[in-house]
């Protein structure tokens, strides 16, 4: 017997696992895919570190361990706890985003980092799962039998727009895009009317050129778009860029020079010579693609595919709408992060400055990605609890 959300609150905390409600195969598939990805990422980062004659891959092991422990904790915890704390997470995150604008450390003309008790972190990484929880809570409480329309979506859109706008001001275009994409994914999953969806999409596409004209887009972002446009054409303007501003183009060369089978470990020319800036963070895919080639890349993307598919399967095993939406949102976080990053490295988008999940170096990014996977797995581990 099951009851609507909020019925048997006390039993959600300590319900025993029964044999019938053991984790499904999807959970194991997802776990295997995740662990393989993490190991591939660490190995790849070790090579990238050796190219740069540094040893940040050792630090990364620490981040991965912390991230996995956190993910396990989140996966095993009762979501009920999160549900209750959701407003605190979300509004706390918003407060942190405001605080980072006021007191944040300025790096490269952007205020993204904040230090609390000597530990630096990005509030924008924290807001992503918080937003997912907030949206899930909204849709759980306000569930409507009809498909949602623009009017009924006003509040969730506001919940997305608030942190997205604050992140844009930092400025961190990439993360803002991920936040918006995650918000849309959850709304889409909950069922948005096609017409409303198209109107929304059209409005955003219309706003882009206006934002460009009104200088709401930063000059350096415009420059990146120009570099990207020049890169994808053979116009003379593109050739003028030969001498400088070649980072995205060089990333393409590194990827392409991997050919079918790759150069092999520690043989990447572009990466070894540190020609590529950010090669162990945002552009880590270039290092991987150069060493492992097309075959390695297909393997990598299939792994991601398996992870996303299995996590989606796990998501709908949740016994409540809240759990489903949290899991789906968590998958969306990792998925869009990957898509925007890979699109940038492969020259499909202008440079937006995002890390690649499980492959890029960095504490905040690694922990946040693993945390998201933990959230997604939660649904599969609690499906049987009543």
């Amino acid at each position, binding site marked *: 017997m*099951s009851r*609507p959300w909020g019925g048997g609150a006390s039993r959600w905390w300590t319900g025993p696992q029964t044999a019938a409600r053991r984790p499904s195969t999807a959970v194991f598939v997802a776990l295997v895919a995740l662990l393989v990805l993490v190991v591939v990422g660490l190995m790849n980062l070790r090579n990238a570190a050796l190219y740069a004659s540094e040893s940040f891959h050792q630090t990364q092991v620490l981040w991965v361990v912390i991230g996995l422990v956190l993910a396990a904790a989140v996966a095993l915890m009762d979501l009920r706890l999160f549900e209750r704390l959701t407003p605190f997470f979300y509004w706390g995150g918003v407060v942190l985003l405001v605080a980072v604008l006021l007191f944040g450390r300025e790096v490269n003309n952007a205020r993204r980092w904040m230090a609390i008790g000597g530990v630096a972190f990005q509030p924008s990484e924290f807001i992503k799962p918080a937003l997912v929880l907030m949206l899930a809570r909204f849709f759980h409480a306000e569930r409507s039998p009809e498909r949602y329309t623009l009017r009924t979506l006003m509040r969730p859109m506001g919940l997305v727009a608030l942190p997205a706008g604050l992140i844009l001001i930092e400025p961190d275009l990439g993360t803002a895009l991920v936040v918006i994409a995650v918000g849309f*994914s959850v709304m*889409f*999953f*909950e*069922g948005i009317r096609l017409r409303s969806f198209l109107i929304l999409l059209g409005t955003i596409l219309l706003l882009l050129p206006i934002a460009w004209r009104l200088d709401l887009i930063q000059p350096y972002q415009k420059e990146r778009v120009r570099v990207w446009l020049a890169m994808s054409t*053979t116009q003379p303007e*593109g*050739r003028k860029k*030969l*001498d400088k501003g*070649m980072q995205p183009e*060089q990333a*393409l*060369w*590194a*990827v*392409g*020079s*991997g*050919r*079918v089978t790759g150069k092999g470990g520690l043989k990447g*020319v*572009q990466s070894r*010579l540190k*020609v590529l800036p950010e090669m162990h963070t945002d552009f880590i895919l270039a290092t991987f*693609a*150069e060493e492992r*080639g*097309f075959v390695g*890349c*297909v393997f990598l*993307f299939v792994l*991601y*595919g398996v992870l*996303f*598919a299995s996590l*989606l*399967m796990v*998501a*709908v*095993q*949740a*016994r*409540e*709408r809240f759990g*489903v939406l949290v899991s*789906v949102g968590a998958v969306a976080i990792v*998925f869009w992060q990957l*898509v925007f990053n*890979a*699109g940038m490295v*492969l*020259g*499909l988008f202008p440079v937006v400055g995002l890390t690649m999940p499980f492959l890029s170096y960095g504490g905040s990014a690694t922990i946040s990605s693993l945390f998201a996977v933990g959230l997604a797995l939660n649904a599969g581990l609690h499906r049987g609890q009543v």
Partner: protein
Amino acid sequence: MTSLSGERIEYRTQVLWSLIIVFVVLAILIGRLFMLQVVRGEQLETLARVSHVVREPIPAARGTIRDRNGEILAVDVEVSDLMVVPRYVKDARGEVGLLRDLGVLDAAQAEDLIRRIEETGAGPKGFQWLLARPNLVGALCPYDQERMTFDPSRGRLVCTACGREFQDQRAVVQSRLHELPGFSLRTRTARHYPARDLAAHVVGIVNEVGAGEVRRSEGRLKPGDLVGRSGIERALDDALRGRPGENVFVRGAGGERLDPKGLPPPFNELESFPPRRGQDVTLSLDLSLQKAARDALSRHRSGAVVVMDVDSGEVLALYSHPAFDPEPAVLRGNSGSVTGVDAILSPLVNKAVTPYPPGSVFKMVTAVAALMEGQADAKTRIECRGVLEYKKRLFRCHQRSGHGEIGIVEAIAASCDVFFYTLADALGLDTLAHYARDYFGLGEFTGIEIPERRGVIPTARWYGRLGRPPYQPGFALNVSVGQGDVRVTPLALARAYAALVNGGRLLRPRLVRPVGDAPAGTERTVAPEVTRVLDLPPAVVRLVMAGLHDAVNTEEGTAYPARIKGLRFAGKTGTAQAPETRPGADEKTAAWLKEDHAWFVAYAPSRRPRVVVVVFVEHGGFGGQVAAPVARQVIEAYYAEHADEFADLWEDFDAEPILDIVPEVP
């Protein structure tokens, strides 16, 4: 009541769509990877070998500047400097000792270098270049920068011009560089001015561009480029500089040099191109006349000489005294620099294009104005009693005893002030200014290529504004004899007198011969640039020219002592009161500054004139005594140089009466 399974069913479509989206997006990414790695893989792999594009500028030689006879006035020379990076020096004493033994450094220089290497070697500047010894003796003689030839029998270089012998320091150092770790040779271009101070004001100087200029030039200039700062070097800078070439190649990821031709687009379209040499410039200047001007002025503290061809407007000499040495310090070497010039004499100011009060040389303008306006003619006689009382003010003649009753020709010759005061009263200030400016171009820019200043020709309206004193009628009298507020440049006077004697053509004085013209020797073939043609009736010109002739060639004339017998010249003296004070002047200088300016404007020969010579001696004293002899010396040099052309003139120069020599207005 919604069941657990019901919830799952509710989301089935969404899961399906989500999976489709995930796999389509991942497929697009894999498709892109296929494009990059499989389809374009080979091309991109070639590009991946590229690290960056290197563009090495190849400097363009600056154009050479020559005088009309082909004498070099400014030319690029290569200079080799011995450089050292202190931190790379293994054994400072040993290496510097070797350089001393090789004859590159003397004992004092060696000690100084060891000290500098040891001082900076340990410090933060240890990896920066240090100039060990500038301008090693190489292909050019250190004394005159002339070519040297190698004499194998003695193993030494011999200067083709002065015959001095030198050791080839550059070659010696080059061959021993392997024993001199840390040392290296650097070649750079320096601008050499063989004529030194002789044409410094005309030719001007160059120096390195500043950072701000490089920014403003939008890529036209690069750090280290030389740009003209004054004179012709500045006026024709763009033509002289040429265009640097560019050596383009691609640096590979391993630091190796890749040929762009073997790379895929766009690299295979990169092209190197050679530098384009700056244009050579030939000046109208005649270095021997320039030298005559310098020699003639050398007795005086300060002054200027301008020699201009009356038919073409070509400036044959333009010398400002004292001059400065434009040679860059590194090239001066041991050849004795022109130093010790008193800054109070403004050696950097080109006095030939600086306005001064002209004194009586202005009377030519007053005479022409009076004759044109009908206030005087050949029969006019005015009595000079040495002073003229005008509105209760006394205007004195320079000859206190007076000139008696004289006509206009004698008045010009004897420079009678009272005569011209009287005419000026009738003419008025504005009429005088009209003739000075609108006819003879005084107070206007002459249009010469080098930077010049404009004089002042005051009018009634000119006064009373901008803090100037209010106009008074007596000002016309002052102006008529070149006093008061009139200021003209020697060059403008040359142009004005040339217009008087060449048939009324006011010319633009020119220093640069047309581009592409080979040195034209002493030919007078250049077509003049006429600013305007003056409507001067021959009768007027004859009267004034007669006066100018008599000023030099009759006993009553103010310049009689400076006359040349035979091939006579004519002219007008000027003595302008211009007492001044300058900061920092000692007693002797202060006394000098109280003296009058001495002027002489001559044309020669007095019949069918070919050149105008303007002499200005700053605070020199009487024009007839001081400036006229300078002009005479310059004219003699001109005659000597053109002796063959004047041969027939010498025969019967006096046969024709002076007043019949006026050329017709074309």
